[in-house]
């Protein structure tokens, strides 16, 4: 098991863009909201920028996940159906996170 690297220093680098403390804080806060801790097994550098953007996207898509499920529950309640045919995810009741 390798330690988890967060800095991207694998290329002869060009100067990075000016740092934006507010953006950093926002992403870091988002990370803390989503975070659950466990060891990683990657032996490649996942990169800070890539990680932060994935976290941001995960926040949005993760919300969509619940919206879809609640939508399916409401549809089922209103029309007495189990969501759209063939959509496996809408066939199960929503679980709490």
């Amino acid at each position, binding site marked *: 098991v*390798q330690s*988890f690297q*967060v*800095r*991207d220093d*694998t*290329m002869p*680098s*060009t*100067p*990075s*863009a000016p*740092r*934006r403390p507010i*953006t*950093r804080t926002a*992403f*870091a806060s988002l*990370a*803390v909201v*989503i*975070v*659950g*801790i*466990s*060891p*990683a*097994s*990657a*032996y*490649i*550098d*996942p*990169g*800070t*920028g*890539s*990680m*932060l*953007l*994935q*976290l941001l*996207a*995960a926040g949005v*898509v*993760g919300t*969509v*996940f*619940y919206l879809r499920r609640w939508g399916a529950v409401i549809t089922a309640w209103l029309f007495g159906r189990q969501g759209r045919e063939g959509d496996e*995810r809408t066939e199960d009741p929503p*679980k*709490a*996170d």
Partner: protein
Amino acid sequence: MGSPAPGTAATFRDPDGVLQQHDDRVLRLIRPHAVARFKELLAEDVVVRLMRAGTLVNTWPAPHEAIPAGWRSAEGSVYEHERIAFVSYPCEWSAAMLARAAELTLETALELLAKGFMLKDATPANVLFRGSRPVLVDVPSIVPRPSGTFLWLARQQFERSFLLPLIANLTSGIPIAWSLQDPGTGLSHERLARILGWRRWLQPHLVRSVALPAALAGATPRAGHLAQEPRMANDERARFVLERSLGSLVATVRRYRKRLARQHSHWAAYQTTRTHYSDTDLAVKRAFVSDAFSRQKPQWTLDVGCNTGEFSELAARHSRVIAIDSDEAAVGNLWQRAHEASLDIQPLVVDFARPTPGSGWQNGESRAFIDRCRSRFDCVLMLAVVHHLRVASGVPLAQIVELVARLCRGHVVLEFVPVTDPMFARIARGREPLYADYTRENIERLLGERFEIQSTRALSNGRILYLAARRGPGTE
């Protein structure tokens, strides 16, 4: 178990194992901590299905007699991979090939994700081409996905080694070979951001793929933040997030593939604008080459300076073909046609005058193109390419014939373009006196030293076709 011997092509960066070629076998030593997992992996339905489909390289436990002496006492287990007949490297691919390799990587990642696995790395170095079709060859990069994982840790590597070289190629014409000198590292977001300048903020896909990652690359999270991989408590939600993330990447790559398919190089129009060939001469040339293939029945053909690939396609009716040209767009167009028609042609961006050198650790991770081709081909096509090598690249005729003899174990079909030809005049531009050695007599004398000229055909446009058989065993 130790490092691979110097000078041998091998991979050794993955902590789970080492790959080496021994004689004609491709063997992988899996280290003790990963043996049980790897054994289970090979029995998984999804892995078996991918192998049967030909998109993942076939793998099985190596028979005892195949295991090299140095590995018999090593801890771990040795597995054998199906040998992909001709190894090419990402720096030799056209952009269209890289895009298809990227698509395959993502499609595989999605299929694995549905069955509880993921790819721990994603680089074009994990892909080889079987003819015109890509094959994922790094089986140990498939690992179980821990519950709650919603980040793809290989995404940055995927972006740098697949996505950004494609963007650089499409937006600024940067050659894939430049971006992928090291396919494991690729092109950094910061470097591409500098290349694109303000353009990176103009299109949403560039903002997401280049501008924002480059702006955030220097960010340093506060101590403790992101020090370990975040997970979601709800695994179904985590998988949903990962699926959407990979799905969005697939859509982006497919858009790029479509753009590449629409692109046409100046070479694509060559066949229709060809004025130096009458229909009769072209028919004679095709018949000459076709007859040579019918009689010699080569297994492997190298088409040097394949251009639009007209004769590579003809060769593919009889043999497996490696087609090389220095023009990336021409190679891309040929690959597109070969892929659509399932032809056994592997078109590569290789300049015969400056072929790919060995690279990586001790220059041994990627073998030089000439080393991979030595005594490999039953037929070498040198159609209207010798004058380019002589004039544009300044290589003496004797050395050109010498190199062809080194790669060829069967026959060569050579088209000699005389100095009076308009295409020769176009590249010589009045410097004809510099190429006094470039004569019909000289090429026949040099060919005769290494080959036996079996057939000659003069065309009405002054060009001459030769079919010559290699003298001796051709095993230099």
